[in-house]
């Protein structure tokens, strides 16, 4: 690998790497000229609405479609049996999650429905309103079945078995035992046990899931407009399950109104929409309404974790032990499964600490609720809540300052490369430097004084610190090795046109993070051109190189590197032509601000527009044996490390009103190390947006179910999201520890904010409540839970 700092293009003074530039593609959104999937309108397009199961678990005895088919505007009424003839079922398991089992799942339920909201019948009509009208005319005879809701009861002797073919409700279980946990607990000065509960919540994308499928039977082409994070993955899946060759399926992803991991999964209603278009030979649109989104979008984070931590009298943490339970709905999600969250909880807990003794068990069970799977920061909020909760528990037990215990136990900055107790490889992290920076930034010593003074006045304030690790730049180990059609690589094609401008096509997608902007910054810097001369194309499987899309904090690190390498390759190609035209050596030339220049003195020799003109219109003036190539494609996949870990620390200062249980933020700081920062503003805004999503899960958001498995709050008025007045301004700072695996050195930053917010807030609340002997360990930390923790209610 080349050493990044030696490359004069990426890091020379006028490079765009490390510079805040505004996002060119944001302008159309500001003018109301975005193009989201629901904005797509095609000739002969019809609309689908789904009859969804009103019960969490019920046998479908009979479906009477006769009245519905006669309703005004109705084009088709289709049930599970009909759709199964054109869309093959799937099973959401991956080979590397040994022992995992799940049941066959269909686009529309056959025989029985297993969660409230599972799609059962599809009605296609000329408008969505008419399709919804006709839904009321369908008669389904149901046999209501006993439900499984509680995750631990799911494995009880008398639990209803959701899928008989599986034998029980266990989806997957894995254990881990590193070092000597038993001996550590035997010799510990203190052992602290605690149960933590992470609440089920969901992404609530402002733009709900949307898809338009357009099958043209004349040329056997399926064109799909979809709000998705992973167009090539969806292309493979739609092709496979409808039975088309992949080149006959084109997935186009225009503007996406928020995704956060929710739109990286294959959903039954979206398969049904594609199947319906195939059956009808015309465009079919499905846009989930808000209630269907709450019932059918992936939920996440529903975990119950028993923890145990051992600490010596002088503050050395000598063992962590966890037992994690999670209920993931009735089916494992496809194709990423519903076990990744538990896997990451098991693998990542305690990963920032030196301790070598770690024991854990993760149990994933099926239940009759909406399926769970990956949502922004997969598992990390749980990992960080329990890890940093345990560390604060240990600190309190021995009377040590929370910063001090972390300082003693975090992996030292000069200890790399190293591994965690669970075996995670760490290339280079900066826990100590990050903690030092946060201490200054938040003004820790002053806050402690303020806290003490406030307590004198009967005001309860608390400081919460949460260090974290974050998995980014996932390599093939995440999904590819398990057999899923999910590529870890990304590719970029860079083309110089006849006027000297550049087009980049790349496999990642844009959901507002700024993917297209950072790709442009990478290409511009590597190639030597200005940003305004670049156009970036994403989200079209017919056009872009094969790529994984945008998830797992992979855009900057993986696609950014592909863009850099493609830009460099095109620069070489251009300089080869220029050298011939200028009758000099390519090594003596360079490109800067859209001109070929002398490497030595910077003298402008020729604009790129001249290169374009000659190569495209007057190649006769070039030597007969020379063919110019003004296009270059490069791919990149990390190989040395299975993923690039990042790290950081969040700190907040809050005040708890012990009469109302309400929380007010007084300060919120984040120090984050995502390696090379390409665009500081975009990174900071990823962190801020991420923190606020974390605050949502910590304080407000919860999918609440009754014991019949019915969702009680499936609207935006009773599922609470953080609003502008609920959240603080957030100060963000960086330590930059580039990965040496790539020339660019970037790691991911999209999930770090979300991953540690709940932990920081929980620790702050518990710090505030400690004089009152109260403690909260169940999210969301509602006023009610806070008041009951201090015995007020």
């Amino acid at each position, binding site marked *: 690998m080349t050493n990044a700092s030696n490359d004069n293009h990426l890091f020379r003074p006028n490079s765009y790497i490390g510079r805040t530039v*505004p*996002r060119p593609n*944001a*302008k159309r*959104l*500001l*003018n*109301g*000229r*975005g*193009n*989201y999937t*629901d*904005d797509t*309108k095609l000739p002969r397009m019809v609309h689908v609405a789904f009859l969804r199961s009103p019960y969490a678990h019920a046998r479908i005895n009979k479906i009477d479609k006769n009245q519905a088919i006669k309703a*005004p505007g109705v084009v088709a009424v289709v049930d599970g049996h009909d759709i199964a003839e054109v869309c093959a079922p799937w099973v959401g398991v991956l080979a590397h999650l040994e022992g995992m089992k799940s049941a066959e799942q269909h686009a529309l339920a056959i025989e029985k429905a297993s969660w409230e909201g599972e799609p059962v019948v599809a009605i296609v009509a000329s408008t969505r*309103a*008419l399709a919804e*009208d006709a839904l009321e005319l369908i008669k389904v005879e149901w046999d209501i079945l006993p439900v499984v809701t509680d995750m631990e009861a799911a494995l009880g002797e008398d639990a209803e078995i959701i899928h008989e073919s599986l034998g029980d409700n266990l989806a997957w279980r894995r254990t881990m035992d590193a070092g000597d946990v038993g001996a550590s607990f035997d010799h510990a000065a203190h052992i602290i046990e605690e149960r933590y509960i992470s609440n089920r919540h969901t*992404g*609530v*994308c*402002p*733009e*709900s899931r949307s898809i338009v499928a357009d099958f043209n039977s004349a040329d056997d082409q399926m064109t799909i407009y979809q709000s998705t994070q992973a167009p090539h993955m969806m292309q493979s899946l739609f092709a496979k399950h409808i039975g088309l060759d992949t080149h006959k399926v084109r997935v186009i992803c225009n*503007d*996406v*109104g*928020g*995704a*956060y991991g929710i739109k990286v999964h294959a959903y039954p209603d979206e398969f049904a929409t594609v199947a319906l278009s195939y059956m009808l030979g015309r465009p079919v649109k499905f846009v989930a*309404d*808000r209630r269907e989104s709450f019932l059918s979008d992936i939920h996440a984070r529903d975990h119950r974790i028993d923890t145990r931590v051992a600490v010596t009298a002088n503050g050395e943490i000598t063992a962590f032990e966890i037992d994690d339970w999670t209920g993931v709905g009735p089916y494992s999600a496809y194709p990423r499964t519903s076990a990744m969250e538990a896997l990451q909880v098991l693998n990542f807990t305690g990963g920032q600490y030196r301790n070598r003794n770690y024991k854990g068990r993760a149990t994933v069970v099926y239940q009759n609720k909406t399926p769970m799977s990956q949502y922004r920061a997969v598992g990390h909020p749980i990992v960080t809540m329990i890890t940093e909760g345990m560390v604060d528990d240990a600190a309190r037990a021995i009377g040590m300052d929370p910063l001090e215990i972390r300082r003693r136990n975090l992996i030292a900055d000069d200890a790399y490369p190293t591994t965690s107790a669970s075996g995670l490889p760490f290339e280079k992290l900066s826990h100590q430097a990050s903690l030092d920076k946060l201490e200054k930034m938040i003004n820790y010593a002053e806050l402690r004084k303020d806290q003490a003074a406030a307590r004198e006045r009967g005001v309860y304030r608390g400081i919460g610190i949460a260090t974290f690790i974050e998995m980014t730049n996932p390599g093939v180990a995440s999904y590819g090795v398990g057999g899923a059609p999910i590529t870890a690589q990304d590719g970029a094609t860079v083309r110089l046109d006849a006027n000297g401008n550049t087009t980049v096509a790349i496999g990642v997608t844009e*959901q*507002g*993070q*700024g993917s297209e902007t950072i790709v442009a910054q990478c290409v511009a810097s590597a190639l030597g051109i200005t940003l305004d001369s670049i156009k970036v194309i994403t989200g079209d499987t017919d056009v872009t190189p094969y790529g994984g899309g945008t998830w797992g904090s992979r855009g900057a690190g993986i696609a950014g590197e592909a863009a850099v390498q493609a830009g460099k390759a095109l620069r070489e190609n251009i300089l080869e032509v220029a050298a011939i035209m200028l009758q000099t050596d390519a090594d003596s030339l360079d490109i800067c601000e859209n001109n070929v220049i002398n490497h030595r003195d910077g003298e402008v020799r020729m604009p790129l527009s001249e290169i374009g003109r000659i190569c495209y219109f007057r190649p006769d003036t070039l030597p007969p044996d020379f063919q110019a190539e003004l296009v270059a494609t490069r791919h990149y996949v990390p190989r040395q490390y299975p993923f690039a870990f990042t790290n950081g620390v969040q700190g907040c200062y809050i005040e708890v009103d012990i009469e109302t249980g309400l929380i007010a933020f007084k300060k919120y700081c984040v120090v984050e190390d995502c390696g090379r920062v390409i665009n500081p*503003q*975009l990174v900071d*805004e990823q962190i*801020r*947006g*991420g*923190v*606020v*999503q974390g605050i949502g899960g910590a304080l407000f958001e919860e999918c609440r179910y009754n014991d019949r498995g019915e969702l009680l709050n499936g*609207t*935006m*008025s009773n599922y609470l*999201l953080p*609003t*502008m*007045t609920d*959240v603080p*301004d*957030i100060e963000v700072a960086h330590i930059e520890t580039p990965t040496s695996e790539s020339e660019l050195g970037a790691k991911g930053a999209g999930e770090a*904010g979300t991953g540690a917010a709940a932990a920081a807030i929980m620790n702050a609340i518990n710090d505030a409540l400690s004089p009152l002997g109260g403690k909260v360990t169940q999210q969301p930390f509602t006023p009610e839970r806070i008041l009951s923790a201090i015995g007020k209610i």
Partner: protein
Amino acid sequence: MTTEKRLISLSVNGELQAKIVEPRMSLADFLRIELELTGTHVGCESGVCGACTVNINGQTARACTILAVQVEGDEVTTIEGASESGEFRDLQDAFHARNALQCGFCTPGMLMMSAELLTQNSKPCRQEIREYLSGNYCRCTGYEAIVDAVETVAQTRNARVGEQDD
């Protein structure tokens, strides 16, 4: 179920429109489907999120909770109209410079509300900005950048007014 369609006429972004609509059609659907003004977004269909905010006769309103037949004879401005007239170009520029949008789905509604705030209160403090916009959800930005952008525009407009006064 459907009842008889009705003819409505109104002004949208300065253009007179006459259309026959079902009485149950929301203004948001009317704008998006009938007039193809897709800049008005629908996030919750229930008046909670603010994504569908438009301006009716000089006041913001949530187009998802109003029926198209209710705006008969009214003057409606959407993000498309406001963008073309340039009435809050400075807000759009400030949002752009400060990256006060990510996916952009909330943005048209945020801009409509921010513009209204600044006509009512030319010197809002950060808390006042947060309160005025608290009915508009943004799932991406964490809100701070939006507050910054609105604050910047208020300051710039005031500085301009100050210069004129001098």
